[in-house]
């Protein structure tokens, strides 16, 4: 049993592929996951051939700014790309074009139900090729596919503000939802479209200084795993600290099968990337007007939208959440809510019907058609109370046993009578009204 309480000190680094048409620094197609064959989307630039020179993708830069603004970041009006030099077979130039000291975005914040998480920076870089490990003719080899080489990659780094494994999971999901909502990335974790890394340390309750060490956990490819991995690390580190030692500064991987983290590389010998500004890429300079234009074009984000719909149209969050995942869908819904208000129908009721799939619809339908569909689905036939009561009386007469049992206290039998009456009426009824009359008659 541990004597002290330890708190989590955790920051996350998330990489997300942008779904531009072409790669970050060349015109090759950006579609590595769906490529039918390896090495079919390469050229002298992304294959690292002699004389290959990069030219930056404008849209990828704009989308990076878009995400930065959505996360409340400041934007560096002057920015550049730097070379990060290291050797690995999946890195064809032996350097990754990235951003070192002047990222496009910095100092942002994202809200979670556990509190805000500060975004340290967001920068743009290029992805590497993909390695496949195989055994060929008795030899262990790695196969390399460069279709993914130089796909635009956005990196989001947080301050160590994450206080629980649950918050980490929520953060990951929230980030993914925003990226998808902005329509800049699919974040499909199984396809490697989003990759999570967590920097984890723990400190005693009451301590405010950052711990002297941190472990970096990589290769986490689901939100569930990030939560598990952090939990595991917290326990592992606590054990070490309780024993009077300090956990080693290192990189660890997550083994999903065994549900453990394992050591991969010590960070003592930290890589020396020899960053310097890439001479092939002129720097980027924005005007405030350009940034404000991008900001003006930002869609209203889901959290704000859902809240506003609650305030304005009284639509419950649990319905709104299910009904849209893109700005286009959101606009369609809002048009619908505005329309139903004019028709004196409760927006929340139609939202309920749509969310529970009581009414089928497509985004290509006109909102007015969907409203009409709703109306006819919920229209009640004009039935006089006389007709109601005569049918009810008939049903009671045919089921005296049940009627007596109802009077004796088995109130749930009203449902039986309800069903019988409905069948006998054979028309569309106002259910509430029918129940009221049934009750009335049964209690006579």
């Amino acid at each position, binding site marked *: 049993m541990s004597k002290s309480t330890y708190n989590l000190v955790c920051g996350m680094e998330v990489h997300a592929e942008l779904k531009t048409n072409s790669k970050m620094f060349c015109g090759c197609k950006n579609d590595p996951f769906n490529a039918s064959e390896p090495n079919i989307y390469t050229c002298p630039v992304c294959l*690292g051939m*002699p*004389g290959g*020179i990069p030219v930056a993708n404008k849209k990828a830069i704009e989308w990076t700014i878009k995400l930065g603004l959505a996360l409340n970041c400041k934007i560096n009006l002057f920015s550049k790309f730097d070379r990060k030099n290291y050797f690995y077979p999946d890195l064809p130039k032996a350097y990754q074009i990235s951003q070192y000291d002047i990222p496009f975005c910095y100092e942002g914040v994202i809200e979670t139900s556990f509190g805000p998480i500060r975004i340290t920076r967001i920068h743009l870089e290029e992805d590497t090729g993909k390695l496949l490990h195989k055994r060929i003719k008795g030899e262990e080899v790695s196969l390399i596919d460069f279709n993914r080489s130089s796909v635009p990659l956005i990196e989001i780094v947080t301050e160590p503000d994450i206080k629980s494994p649950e918050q980490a999971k929520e953060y990951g999901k929230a980030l993914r939802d925003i990226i998808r909502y902005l329509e800049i990335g699919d974040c499909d974790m199984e396809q490697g479209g989003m990759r999570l890394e967590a920097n984890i340390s723990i400190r005693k309750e009451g301590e405010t200084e950052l711990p002297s060490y941190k472990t970096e956990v990589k290769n986490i490819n689901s939100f569930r795993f990030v939560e598990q991995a952090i939990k595991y690390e917290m326990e592992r580190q606590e054990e070490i600290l309780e024993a009077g030692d300090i956990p080693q500064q290192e990189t660890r991987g997550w083994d999903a099968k065994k549900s453990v983290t394992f050591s991969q590389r010590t960070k003592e010998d930290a890589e020396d990337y020899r960053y310097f500004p890439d*001479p*092939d890429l002129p720097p980027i300079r924005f005007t405030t007007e350009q940034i404000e234009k991008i900001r003006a074009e930002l869609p209203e984000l889901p959290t704000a939208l859902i809240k506003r719909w609650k305030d304005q149209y009284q639509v419950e969050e649990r319905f709104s959440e299910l009904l849209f995942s893109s700005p286009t869908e959101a606009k369609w819904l809002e048009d619908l809510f505005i329309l139903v208000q004019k028709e004196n129908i409760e927006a929340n009721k139609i939202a309920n019907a749509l969310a529970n799939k009581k009414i089928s619809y497509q985004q290509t339908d006109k909102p007015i058609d969907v409203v009409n569909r709703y109306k006819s689905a919920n229209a009640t036939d004009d039935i006089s109370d006389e007709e109601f009561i005569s049918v009810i009386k008939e049903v009671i007469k045919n089921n005296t046993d049940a009627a007596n049992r109802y009077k004796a206290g088995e109130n749930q039998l009203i449902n039986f009578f309800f069903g019988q009456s409905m069948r006998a009426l054979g028309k569309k009824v106002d259910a509430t009204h029918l129940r009221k009359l049934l009750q009335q008659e049964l209690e006579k």
Partner: protein
Amino acid sequence: MLNTLTLKQALDKLEKKEITLGDLNSDVKSAIEKLNKDLNVYLTINEKKITQAEMSAPLAGLPIAVKDNYCTKDLKTTASSTVLDNFIPQYDSTVIAKLKKAGGHIVGKTNLDAWAHGSSTETSQYGRTLNPRNTDYLPGGSSGGSAAAVAADLCLASLGTETAGSIRQPSSWCGVVGLKPTYGRCSRYGVVAMASSTDSPGPIAKTVEDSAILLNYIAGHDKYDGTTSTQKVEDYTKYLDQNITGMKIGVLYTDIEGLEEIKEIFIDQVKVFEKLGATVEFIKAMDPHHAIGVYTIIQRGEVSSNLGRFDGIRYGNDRSFFGHEAKNRIMLGTYTLSKGYAHQYYNTAQKVRTLFIEDYKKLFKDYDVLVSPTSPGYAKKIGISESSAMFGELEDMLLEPSSIAGLPGISVPCYRDPKTNLYLGMNLVAPMFREDLVIKVGDAFEKNTKWNSWRNK
């Protein structure tokens, strides 16, 4: 022998039907067969036949030699290193594509200092090239093969590249004309990168006129090279045969230590400008010794990064094939970029670079063209590159300032030693994108002196 014609002469004679391309190529071929074995100018000869399209285009299929650091589609490209001894590019560099479109026919790929690292062509892993003017001597480098190809009439003109001296210095040692355009005037796409922030493809030719003709075709914006300029390419040949009266010429570096051997000769030659009506003043500029440090650090840093891609996985051989000079430069570059050192080396070098740029801006307020010796002396004897780990950068000291500032420069022959048959070169430098000025003044010098061996047969 038709291979001794200049590019312009050949074009004129072809048009007038005084000669045929077939005869000219036959003479070039004979010359190559006779001389290449000893001079070691060409590493690879292009076996492809001349096409109708080439013959119909402006350069009429005339034979051009190309430095072996330009990627040429389906034609072996080695950068004179055994790392690439089996590399056959699947693409053309932009400048080559432009040359082909203009009708230039590649004779073959010329020898260079391996990876363009040097000023002698001795660091080539395929043997040194000899200076055709006197084969006891070296042609200079790194574009030694291209300069020698021109000097020996094994082509009608050639393409070289300059990072800091590699076009102008071998041109000076071989007694030919070498034009280094403004950085960004010609595309670097497809050229094996050395120092990305100063590399400049450019022509090496028999006359200033020929270099202007070639520049017309190879210059221009390239969407595949983000450092190329959108400035329109003018017709540089309209700056030939011009009057230079009233132009202001500043002469630099004549009292630098080490130039004693050539100082008097050079000063004497500079008087030609006065005779032609220009004003000549001997002035001081920022000490070029500082440029050595700036250039060495920036270049080797960028080299260490640019040569990282040669790992033998996607093409070529593994890194154990690198020669000693390449290893030298990669190591120093890695060191000056590394943690703890980048600040004192790389960043400082980039700041001193700014000082050189500012110095030139100041000088060009008062002078149209700045002139200096190209090389501290004549071509050197075989074996010189091993004299110092920094031989290349020291040798190019007078050219490094204009290279790191990205300025255009031309070297024209300005003296021939009758005893050795070796040449001296004069370097003319102008502001960025003012190739017109160096062509104008260089052409005037060439036509009013007797040092050009084709104009003064």
